[in-house]
């Protein structure tokens, strides 16, 4: 092929890819002159080069498209969807012709008169000939037999005109691959890359041996060249590793176009959010998940999101949201596909399961909703009552699941009625480079993925005054870390390494983040961080969930890679079957639900009691003799002051030598709650199911699988200090600041109201965003709003948008309460209009934030 032509093809393909993106951007922001000029310039260049190279078909199509764009640019034509659609159609035609050109070296034969006429009509300001506007949006959606699994949406591979009755059919040459176009890249089989990888690994090992030898000889002529060899080897290793990795964004880049076309076709407003597009994964894996992902996004758009009218009726923003989120987690790639639609209808799935004979009624009766929802992964299942062109062909999720499992992955789903559905795909990496911390316990070395390591803490096993001390509740080690209790596990015990647990001396604690929970792993030594290549463990070892893989270190030794998630599951943190991997709240894309670390203890009976760990300042185990009396009430000397002690149960066992105490603190005031025994710290969803029958308890919740009474800390604080909640000096000025608290959980609301009340605010609680909005419409006035993020029906993000949109509250400070404040959540919150973000239970932080927000003059 002509060199000039090859260059043109490469350039044009790049331009076309940019054009797609730019046009969609233009559609969203029709007034963006820069984008418009950019598009115009690109199309103009294509047209100009075509004329120069003598490619009449391309030239004519490009010319007609340029005409339309020209009118848009000089303002005589609005950049409305129909106009953009016709231009996109023209670009698809250009792509098809370019593909044919690349295959044969000459323009394929074909007739573009209809398309050009349509373009000219639009340019002339007439409405486009009827079918051109929408039906011909060439997405390939209408193609395929009804039972084709997850039809590919490659627009290049399926010439648009093939689906269009208006345009002339494309020549057969078009569907061929794009040989000349991809001249910049070459295809290499994976085996070649694998072999290269193995060779490089060996080279590294040999290099290391040489370096070791060179070190023993002080002056050697080899030193300098060896140093160079070493650098080159490192670069080579890096390069070879890179060859297999690609950002996942490459699999996503077609999705905006697909979603855009779908939203037009179905008349829904859809926003596609893509996070973590630069997460790299093995390109082979990438290819294999492309189609399943596309299918899932289309499913979300079609089944998941409600029609605009339904959304409005449900009090949701009209624009539905589909979010893709990719990230590394413990040697895996996690991809979440979530929508904020109607959720999976359990009833309809149940009916369908029965109708299809997939399970009996008795079996269904014993299943949880989550189990029933998983039926959508079974073959031959589709709940769409009408078969649309988009999905609902009776195949789908089962094919998706099979495809993902084929590459050793897994798929989980979580769905909440009215709030949406989240699919979580977990793909193990056959080859992923991660940074890992090398630690040792009982003389064995292990790697911990750096991504889950938050910090390293040095602690003593026995108190010596200098370093923090590992304390024990019963036999469970814990560490006080900045006024929080950190649950600890001993790597030696966990892995049954067999070394006798040391009772004294120093220890290193690796603080790991697991989902929303924190866990400290006690190790003997901490070495360095190293870049490692994760290799899967042998099949006979896959059942050991503590390891996510193994790797070879620079010195040639094999080392196991710890999986913090597996450790968490083994220790009971963040465990609980179905929901474990998919703690994602569908609507806001945050990755954890309302899981709360709870301190379990006993007092006056065998049944466990619970209190959120965040509310407890410290745990103390004081000798009995230090419990003294003040005016008949027990007190103890604590940090140089008297601390009132309140017995949790009516009678305190005064014969026990020691007294466990939960210390609550507020400013310089402390109070100790005397309990019988501190049992455990566990992480669970806090959902109060029964309200309390007696004072001092908030109600009963299922925590760690047991019915557990949750204590009302406010009540007990008042027992110690009658004025605990009244002691604060009232704010200056006549009027109390009014704060609205929007929080669906009764527990948190009950916790927040007295807390804020105590701080001198007048507080009104609302159990949902809808209730709050009714207050607004009823004319209630406030100085600030504190809102939860994760709420059913309408979440905090949506609430914030509505508040900001209009009405009397549009300018009020809005503070978000969130179980976890990850950067992307904070960003989403700020986008929605939140003024500040405060983690739940951070009482001080909330008060500080409120004070700050209210101190600044509210934007007038």
């Amino acid at each position, binding site marked *: 092929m002509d060199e000039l032509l090859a260059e043109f093809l490469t350039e044009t393909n790049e331009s076309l890819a940019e054009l797609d993106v730019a046009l969609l951007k233009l559609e969203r922001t029709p007034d963006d002159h820069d984008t418009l000029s950019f598009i115009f310039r690109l199309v103009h260049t294509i047209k100009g080069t075509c004329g120069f190279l003598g490619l009449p078909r391309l030239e004519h199509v490009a010319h007609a498209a340029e005409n339309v764009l020209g009118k848009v640019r000089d303002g005589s034509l609005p950049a409305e969807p129909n106009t953009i659609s016709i231009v996109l159609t023209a670009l698809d035609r250009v792509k098809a012709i370019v593909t044919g050109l690349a295959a044969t070296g000459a323009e394929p034969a074909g007739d573009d008169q209809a398309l050009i006429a349509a373009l000219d009509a639009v340019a002339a300001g007439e409405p486009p000939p009827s079918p051109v506007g929408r039906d011909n949006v060439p997405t390939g959606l209408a193609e395929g037999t009804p039972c084709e699994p997850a039809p590919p949406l490659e627009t290049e591979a399926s010439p648009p005109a093939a689906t269009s009755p208006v345009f002339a059919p494309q020549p057969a040459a078009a569907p061929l691959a794009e040989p000349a176009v991809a001249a910049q890249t070459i295809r290499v089989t994976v085996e070649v890359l694998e072999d290269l*990888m*193995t*060779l490089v*690994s*060996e080279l590294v*090992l040999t290099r290391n041996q040489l370096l070791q030898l060179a070190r023993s000889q002080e002056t050697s002529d080899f030193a300098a060249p060896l140093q160079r060899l070493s650098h080159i080897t490192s670069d080579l290793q890096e390069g070879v590793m890179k060859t297999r990795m690609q950002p996942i964004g490459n699999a996503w880049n077609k999705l905006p176009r697909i979603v855009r076309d779908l939203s037009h076709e179905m008349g829904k407003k859809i926003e596609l959010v893509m996070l973590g597009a630069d997460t790299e994964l093995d390109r082979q894996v990438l290819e294999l998940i492309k189609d399943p992902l596309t299918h899932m996004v289309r499913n979300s758009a079609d089944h998941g999101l409600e029609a605009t009218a339904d959304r409005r009726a449900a009090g949701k923003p009209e624009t539905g949201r589909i979010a893709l989120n990719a990230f590394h987690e413990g040697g895996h790639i996690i991809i979440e596909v979530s929508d904020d639609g109607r959720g999976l209808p359990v009833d309809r799935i149940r009916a369908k399961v029965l109708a299809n004979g997939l399970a009996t009624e008795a079996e269904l009766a014993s299943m949880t909703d989550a189990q029933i929802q998983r039926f959508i992964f079974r073959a031959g299942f589709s709940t769409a009552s009408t078969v649309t062109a988009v999905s609902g062909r009776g195949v789908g999720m089962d094919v998706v699941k099979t495809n993902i499992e084929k590459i050793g992955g897994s798929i989980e789903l979580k769905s909440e009625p009215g709030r949406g559905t989240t699919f979580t795909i977990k793909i193990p990496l056959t080859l992923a480079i991660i940074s890992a911390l090398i630690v040792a316990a009982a003389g*064995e070395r292990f790697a911990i993925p750096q991504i889950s390591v938050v910090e390293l803490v040095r602690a003593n096993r026995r108190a010596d005054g200098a370093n923090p001390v590992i304390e024990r509740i019963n036999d469970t080690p814990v560490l006080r870390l900045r006024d929080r209790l950190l649950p600890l596990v001993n790597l030696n015990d966990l*892995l*049954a*390494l067999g070394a006798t647990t040391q009772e004294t001396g120093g220890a290193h604690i690796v603080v790991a983040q697991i989902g929303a929970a924190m866990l400290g792993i006690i190790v003997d030594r901490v070495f360095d961080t190293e870049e490692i290549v994760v*290799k899967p*463990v*042998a*099949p*006979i*070892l*896959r*059942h*050991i969930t*503590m*390891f996510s893989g*193994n*790797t*070879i270190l620079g010195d*040639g*030794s*094999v*080392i*196991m890679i710890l999986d913090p998630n597996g450790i968490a599951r083994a220790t009971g943190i963040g465990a609980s079957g179905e929901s474990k991997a998919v703690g994602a709240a569908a609507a806001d894309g945050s990755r954890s639900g309302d899981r709360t670390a709870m301190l379990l203890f006993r007092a006056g009976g065998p049944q466990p009691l619970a209190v959120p760990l965040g509310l407890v300042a410290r745990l103390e185990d004081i000798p009995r003799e230090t419990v003294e009396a003040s005016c008949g009430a027990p007190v103890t000397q604590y940090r140089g002051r008297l601390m009132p002690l309140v017995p949790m149960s009516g009678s305190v066992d005064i014969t026990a030598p020691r007294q466990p105490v939960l210390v609550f603190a507020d400013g310089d005031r402390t109070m100790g709650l005397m309990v019988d025994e501190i049992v455990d710290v566990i992480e669970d969803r806090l959902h109060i199911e029964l309200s309390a029958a007696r004072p001092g308890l908030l109600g009963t919740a299922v925590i760690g699988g047991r019915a557990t009474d949750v204590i009302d800390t406010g009540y007990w604080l008042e027992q110690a200090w009658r004025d605990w909640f009244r002691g604060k000096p009232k704010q200056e000025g006549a009027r109390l600041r009014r704060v609205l608290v929007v929080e669906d959980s009764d527990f948190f609301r009950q916790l927040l109201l007295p807390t804020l009340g105590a701080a001198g605010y007048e507080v009104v609680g609302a159990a949902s965003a809808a209730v709050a909005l009714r207050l607004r419409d009823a004319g209630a006035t406030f100085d600030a709003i504190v809102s939860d993020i994760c709420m059913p029906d309408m979440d905090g993000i949506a609430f914030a948008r509505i508040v900001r949109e209009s009405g009397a509250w549009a300018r009020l400070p809005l503070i978000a309460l969130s179980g976890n404040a990850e950067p992307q959540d904070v960003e989403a919150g700020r986008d929605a209009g939140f003024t500040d973000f405060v983690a739940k239970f951070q009482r001080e932080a909330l008060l500080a934030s409120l004070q700050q927000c209210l101190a600044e003059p509210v934007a007038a």
Partner: protein
Amino acid sequence: MTVDLLERPQAGIDEEQVFVTLTVADQLCGVPVLCVRDILGEQTITRIPLAPPEVAGSLNLRGRIVTAIDLRRRLRLAPPQAGTPRMSVVTEQGGELYALLVDQVSEVMSLKAGAFEHNPPTLSPEWSQFSAGVYRLDEQLLVVLDVGRLLALSNAG
């Protein structure tokens, strides 16, 4: 492939099969040579915590991670004396490499099918489940090890 060849020992008494012979606790054993990828001397083996007891650990064979299975433990034999160097026979199954830790690897032998016998029914189950049969040699008996079954460790460990 082992089974395949052994199922027709009568195909011709002169037909020969080639084995790598090895000893474990003084018993001569054989592994079909085609199963063997490598013979290794004493290696540094990384222990794998929580693994089944038969898994001795993993080792690095030219950049590939090999899971080592202790043949003595697999056959419920006493552990070797401390400090005795051991050798490994590396085999491949399902794309994964495994090393069988043995006491000694001796030689490669060509054996006539006529000398093959099925397992004596009285052979203890620890052995019979991993033995594909026995060859009568002049001096001693050679037990043919079924590599597939040796590597089929149950996950229950």
